[in-house]
């Protein structure tokens, strides 16, 4: 009786897990297949035959291309700037001791807990009040405040892992402060910095909640253009764009795996040594 209940329940759990995984994957597969649909209207799944027309449509649409261009430049600029600010802040926080240090670290990480809609809304009020109407300034400001905390966090995490004895060894062996910093600390913190940069790029590239408030009818990012299209026409060029974003995400995860190792993000736990 016990065995039977166990087997039935076990089977049930396996089925439930399989259904969950299927739920996570199937919509993405359907979107991918539909992006190759040869019909020129949005019909039922599956498509009768395949073509590349939606990709051609996406890459020849001036408004999508403009959004893509803005998004890429913005993501690169935001990544560069937030890496600079974030790394400088994290190194300074790690290296020096002063009263109120913990409060300052918490403050530097605090944008992570403010809903993005509120950040976007408050920046809209702020930029309008001080008379900043330039799209680039607004967007870089908005993307900076949501990406810097990620860089600070990953860099701080990698710095905490560096044993003090290593820098001390360099100092004892005659290196100057500066030399031990550049030759020991920076190389050891490299993975944290790189992970932070990958995070910053991904979050800037995907952001809609903040950008939606800071863009206008003739200056927008790709996700904003996609959102607008989704609310009006909902055609399959969005599927083509979505497939491009999926490919980009997989590429970023691959980079993250190369740089940090995905298993390290989770750890193996204490009973797996």
């Amino acid at each position: 009786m016990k065995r039977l209940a166990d087997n039935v329940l076990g089977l049930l759990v396996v089925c439930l897990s399989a259904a969950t995984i299927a739920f996570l994957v199937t919509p993405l597969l359907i979107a991918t297949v539909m992006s190759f649909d040869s019909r020129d209207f949005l019909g039922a799944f599956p498509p009768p035959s395949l073509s590349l027309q939606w990709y051609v449509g996406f890459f020849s649409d001036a408004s999508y291309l403009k959004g893509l261009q803005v998004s890429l430049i913005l993501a690169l600029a935001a990544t560069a700037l937030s890496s600079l600010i974030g790394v400088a802040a994290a190194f300074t926080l790690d290296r020096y001791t002063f009263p109120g240090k913990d409060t300052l670290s918490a403050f530097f990480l605090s944008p992570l807990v403010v809903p993005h809609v509120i950040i976007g809304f408050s920046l809209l009020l702020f930029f309008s009040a001080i008379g900043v109407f330039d799209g680039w300034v607004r967007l870089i400001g908005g993307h900076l405040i949501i990406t810097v905390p990620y860089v600070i966090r990953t860099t701080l995490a990698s710095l905490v892992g560096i044993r003090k004895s290593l820098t001390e060894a360099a100092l004892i062996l005659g290196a100057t402060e500066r030399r031990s910093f550049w030759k020991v600390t920076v190389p050891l913190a490299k993975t944290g910095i790189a992970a932070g940069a990958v995070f910053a790029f991904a979050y800037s590239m995907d952001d809609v909640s903040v950008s939606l408030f800071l863009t206008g009818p003739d200056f927008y990012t790709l996700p904003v253009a996609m959102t607008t299209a989704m609310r009006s026409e909902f055609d399959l060029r969005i599927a083509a764009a979505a497939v491009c974003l999926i490919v980009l995400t997989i590429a970023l995860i691959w980079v993250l795996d190369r740089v940090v190792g995905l298993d390290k993000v989770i750890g193996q736990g204490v009973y797996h040594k």
Partner: protein
Amino acid sequence: MKLTRGAALVLGLVVVVYGALMLYPLLRVFEDSFREFIPGRIGSAANAPFTVANYTDLLHPAYVSYFWDTFRIGLISSFLGVLLAFPIAYFVARRRSDWLRRTTIGFLITLMFLSVLVRVYAIELSFGPVGFASEIARLFGETSGSRFYIEFMIVLGLLHYAVPMSALVLIGAIQNVNPRLIEAAQSLGAARWKSHLAVSVPLCARGLLSAFLVSFTLSISAFIVPMVLGRGKVMFVSNLIYNRFSELANFPSGSAVAVVMLVISLVVIYIVSRLTSGDWERAVR
């Protein structure tokens, strides 16, 4: 090392950036929320009279229902998310480092990184009116445009993030439970399901709670999922803020909603951090 002048300058500059891009704008929102609404401008007028009307308006049943919807749907999806993630997390956590474990973790992280637009579009395409929605809706005895079905779609949209996120949090929690304990329970004669309920689940309680609360925080501040999948029929608090900007241009009212939403999120996050002390930061990574 003691703070040098150069280091203080670096920190000072970063504080200025944060002050300009976050702290000051939030304080302005707070101030604006107490100003009277004068149509036709962005933000309140500098000399608009002070009022609490923007807050008292929110007590109207119509507004309360937006908050209620946000919490109810957020609660359902985070609960389901943890429930569905647990067996997957258990499976991964109990495996040594092999290709299956690495693939599953890679898969879960990729899903977390995926743009919310991709999720929303894929779900709309699969479960929406053009997908197999009509058949699924009929299972519930509904049409694909009914309010129930729209809420169901929003739950799916939120689950698409909540499940991988909860699974990753739970993998960390389960890995730190000694596998011998469950073996002991089973060799002493407990049924497998009973041993899990009596041993694994209580020992992972903190992990389960933290996964639930992180999902809940992210669900109640969701914006794109209810905006696209809700089709204007179901709105979250965040959509209310956006509407105040895009359709009504009533900024003082939007500010009041934003202040209330921020306070609620911060309270939930405070509870999370008290319960998990630092787990949250690792969890949202």
